[in-house]
């Protein structure tokens, strides 16, 4: 047994935190307190949590446009995340970034990114730095099946394999890129198969099984730390919600496909698993955990609301470093 019951409970807590955070973010987006666009990770939480649970402090990750889950799994402060979504001064980016650009460099979260495929070469550079530092750090890039078709994916993986960089490329294969099905844009069902062409291992794992993700990530990370190079880790998963939370957008996905994946929701799956491990967890304990999380989310909203909007003139700050 890889992940101890204790770790599994912690993973459950993080997954539920992501879910509750995003449910709130979506509500507050509908009500107008959050602006621009919100992409929810709900249904895919096991990927970020499984992978990040296998990392150490000092390891680095990069995210895409669907970034709240990666942020929380890496340990970002909920208050400052919510304040950023609210466009406030105490947000991670002082209100300049919003949902698509949350970053916390102090914990090795190198940012969400609004450019599909935009983070892949950047995280490869973080891997190069880790290799040159020589203290065993690794870098993880999270991206979608859509991003795997961008040129930056091919170029980055080839370089990482050639230079044996300590990078784990985590493809969150949710079968859709916005409104376009992966079947229309991929010649093969698995992205991981491409790894052979670059000269790195390509692993396919059930992305809704957090323990399976954790195990696969643990192996890939060990390989990277040992100087044996990168891994392409493909996690099969699904987003429960539409591409964005914009009201009125049409969801082209078949209802039966959505229902089949919602039935494999990673959170109840883990809860069930924990309950079956005799005496490890009960519904009452989960309820108490959830109450605690909801209180944290409530506190993050209070923090965000109490934080002032940035002064308009601060729009001119930080264009250049001092």
């Amino acid at each position, binding site marked *: 047994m890889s992940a101890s019951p204790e770790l599994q409970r912690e993973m459950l807590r993080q997954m539920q935190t992501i879910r509750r955070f995003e449910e709130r973010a979506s509500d507050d987006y509908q009500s107008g307190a959050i602006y621009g666009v919100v992409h929810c990770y709900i249904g895919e939480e096991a990927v970020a949590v499984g992978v990040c649970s296998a990392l150490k402090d000092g390891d680095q990750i990069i995210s895409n446009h669907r970034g709240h889950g990666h942020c929380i799994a890496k340990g970002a402060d909920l208050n400052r995340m919510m304040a950023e979504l609210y466009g406030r001064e105490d947000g991670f980016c002082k209100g300049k*970034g919003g949902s698509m650009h949350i970053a916390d460099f102090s914990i090795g979260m190198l940012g969400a990114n609004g450019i599909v495929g935009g983070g892949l070469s950047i995280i490869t550079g973080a891997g190069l730095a880790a290799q040159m530092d020589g203290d065993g750090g690794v870098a993880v890039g999270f991206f979608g099946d859509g*991003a795997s078709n961008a040129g930056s994916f091919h170029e980055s993986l080839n370089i990482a394999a050639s230079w044996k960089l300590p990078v784990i490329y985590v493809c969150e294969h949710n079968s859709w890129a916005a409104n376009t099905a992966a079947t229309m844009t991929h010649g093969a069902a698995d992205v991981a198969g491409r790894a052979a062409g670059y000269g790195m291992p390509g692993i396919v794992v059930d992305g809704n099984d957090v323990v399976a993700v954790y195990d696969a990530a643990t192996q890939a990370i060990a390989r990277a730390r040992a100087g044996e190079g990168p891994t392409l880790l493909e996690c099969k998963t699904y987003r429960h919600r539409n591409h964005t939370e914009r009201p009125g957008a049409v969801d082209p996905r078949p209802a039966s496909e959505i229902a089949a994946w919602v039935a494999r929701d990673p959170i109840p799956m883990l809860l069930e698993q924990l309950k079956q491990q005799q005496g490890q967890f009960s519904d009452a304990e989960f309820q108490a955990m959830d109450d605690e999380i909801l209180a944290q989310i409530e506190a993050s909203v209070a923090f965000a609301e109490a934080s002032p909007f940035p002064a308009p003139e601060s*729009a*001119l700050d930080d264009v250049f470093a001092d």
Partner: protein
Amino acid sequence: MREISYARAGMEAVTEEMNRDPKTIHLATDAPPAMVEEFGAARVRATPIAENAFSGIAIGAAGSGYRPIVNWSMVTFSFVAMDQIVNQASKIHYMFGGQQTFPIVFRSSVGGGTNLAAQHSQSPYSMFMNLAGLKMILPSTPYDMKGLLKSAIRDNNPVLSFESTRLMGVKGEVPEDDYTIPLGVADVKRTGSDITVVALAWLVHEALAAAEVMEKEGVSVEVVDPRTLYPMDNDTIRASVQKTGRLVIADEAGPTAGASAEIAALVTEDATTFAAMKAPLCRVCALQVPIPYSPGLEDHVFPNRHRIIAGIREVMSAG
């Protein structure tokens, strides 16, 4: 006359031209279901998210007898295709001695006002204006959108269609019958005698609102919409400034090396126009920063009717 939205006008231009010419094809990461239905999946293709590749594919198809219409969606994503645009599309006809034509339209939305932050709120047309070999349109009304886009699709060169995010839902009169608007012809959206405001896209509407306010103060404002950035209708802009003697330029992009700088230069480097000027010109543009997310910050950065009014007053008081 019937009224349709700016977005709808663009859609109609594309579908009508695709009906008119079977060599037109459509490439975008999102294949609009209605278009797939009408023209088939062979002509309306859902591409992978690989802008560099599908922009290059458009160049290759264009050079082989097709007329691709590429939709980058936001101009943000054009940057992923920059190598194909800068090193290939803009030069390929010239570099090979004019042997082959490359009729391509690249559509993209520009501008902000949507709290989408720095990457998704850009107006980078002047970066493309600096290249030789690309035409570009920037419509401000549904009528102009449809007429200009049709001309762009029929043109035998790469044409970039910059379409204002803020105007997508704006409605206006558009005839049912086929019509085109030639590239390179500006439109005087309002005539006036005291000052010219050359405004781009959404700011045409803001300039018209500013003109209403100034009218009440006894200042007669002329609003000129260039409509195409390349070719630029120098004559219409210069003629207007020769008449009024004063100029404000309003653009949603930052001022530095922007379209506004080009317009300022084309006015002041012409001796007759320069001689007619009674005051220094004034540019009303976005502040020169990446666009921030939070609403108060974003509002602070973008120009609007109030800043145009302030610009008009400044020029009027200077001479």
